[in-house]
């Protein structure tokens, strides 16, 4: 195995996802063909217009959906229809369990994977402390804000020590300030775990701030129209939004995505005008 191959953590090759049409409707070509090499330890973000297949991409990579064609590998092993060990997923929807305390929510996966009680306690306590939830360990999710509930879900993923963390618009339901702060949390988590992170987001600024590379996706069927290298240092936080480069990256992303967003909205005719 050469150095480049060793550096690849997950790979999608010529992946497509076509959903069968309901009733007499034609099939929906949701994704691809798409290729991507995710490098070990990188932070990769995907942005694109609504309905372009971002979440489908994540679910195919996670193993939650089978690709219609093409191959997906994680750490060199094929992924298809089953979530591989080492992959953690945080969803946009509130996936906390309202019947369990914050502590028990975080411990859920560990308890089902046969980890010794002492180790469960250690990892859960560490994760809650890391996510700033230590004082809420005995609270129920209903007693927490939306951002805190999302942190509970991240803690539940974190304790399993995933090597690839997939975040599907995890801050979609949060206000702008909370999202910036949650972005800092995710950057901190990424640096401390060394995991590879793939973030799906509709917020260009979020992608530009967090990621090493940002993939801009076309309107459906989703394909990468450009992958932008942000060039941020590993040690960074939300203060980089004040950097001139941040504005340049966000502007470039919007330049690539404006036409695609109009297409997604059904204003294909305006694309030409917009593009000049």
């Amino acid at each position: 195995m050469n150095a480049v191959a060793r550096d690849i953590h997950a790979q999608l090759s010529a992946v497509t996802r076509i959903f069968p049409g309901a009733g007499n409707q034609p099939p929906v070509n949701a994704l691809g063909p798409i290729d991507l090499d995710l490098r070990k330890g990188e932070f990769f973000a995907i942005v694109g217009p609504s309905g372009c297949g971002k979440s489908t991409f994540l679910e195919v990579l996670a193993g939650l959906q089978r690709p219609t064609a093409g191959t997906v590998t994680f750490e060199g092993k094929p992924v298809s229809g089953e979530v591989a060990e080492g992959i953690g997923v945080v969803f946009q929807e509130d996936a906390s369990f309202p019947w369990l305390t914050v502590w028990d929510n975080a411990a859920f996966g560990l308890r089902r994977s046969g980890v010794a009680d002492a180790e469960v306690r250690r990892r859960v306590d560490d994760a809650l402390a890391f996510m700033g939830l230590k004082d809420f360990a005995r609270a129920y999710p209903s007693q927490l804000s939306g951002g805190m509930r999302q942190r509970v879900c991240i803690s539940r993923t974190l304790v399993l020590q995933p090597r690839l963390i997939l975040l599907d618009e995890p801050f979609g339901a949060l206000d702008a300030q909370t999202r910036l702060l949650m972005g800092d949390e995710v950057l901190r988590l990424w640096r401390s775990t060394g995991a590879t992170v793939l973030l799906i987001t509709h917020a260009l600024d979020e992608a530009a701030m967090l990621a090493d590379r940002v993939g801009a996706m076309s309107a459906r069927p989703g394909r990468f129209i450009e992958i932008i290298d942000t060039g941020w240092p590993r040690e960074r936080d939300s203060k980089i939004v004040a950097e001139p480069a941040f504005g340049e990256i966000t502007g470039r992303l919007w330049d690539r995505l404006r036409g695609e967003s109009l297409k997604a909205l059904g204003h294909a005719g305006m694309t030409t005008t917009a593009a000049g």
Partner: protein
Amino acid sequence: MTRVGLIRLAVIVAMIGALELACQTGLIRHQTIIAPSEMATSLYALLASGAINADIERTLGIIVIVIAVSIALGFALGLVIHALPRLREALDPLFATYYAVPIFIFYPVLIAIFGLSPIPIVLIGVATAVVAMIIATLNGLDRVPRVLTKVARVHRLDAVTAAMTLQLPAAAPYLFTGVKLSVSYGFIAVIAAEFILSPAGLGRDIADAYSDFNNRRMYALILFLLIVATVVNTVLHALDVRWAERRSGGRT
């Protein structure tokens, strides 16, 4: 006690007080309704004498069996029907109209088949209560957030573990509604069946007291059933409120 609880208690006390006053002043004839205080003393005397112990044991025993069978069977059938969409499509109209059919018309048929034993009462009780549990189970499973199915797959849970650790707790509030309805229907069906035709039981006892114009005994037994049903429903309500607070309690 909360303010709402105090108001509720005050309303009940006022109604009992008004009835007591109406009975004591002769506004309501003694042959029609006896005073609540008289009902209470009659009930105390009946319980102290042990004269109705066997009937209490029999009736409450049957009710417990009816409720347990209805909940377990209703839940199991709900799971199966939910997993089979075509079957559900076929059964949905039946469930929607089930309680429009007077199920009690089958009671004589059941007596003809099983005789004057507790079996027809149990069957009519289960037939009355089980559908409420099936509907509640279907309702609950419909409302399990889809994201939990994905979470189960991310945690690589098998179908049974996912059902027991995620789907069942997520559906629990709706299932509990089914439990409460099953308890209510169970009580009503068993007492009514005993009242219509049964060799023993509290329902039979009330019917006999009614036929004998024995108002003191009849109202004492009615009061006993009211107390039991109220206590059971209060406990269930308290549990429901407690769980609901956990799920949607005030934010910090």
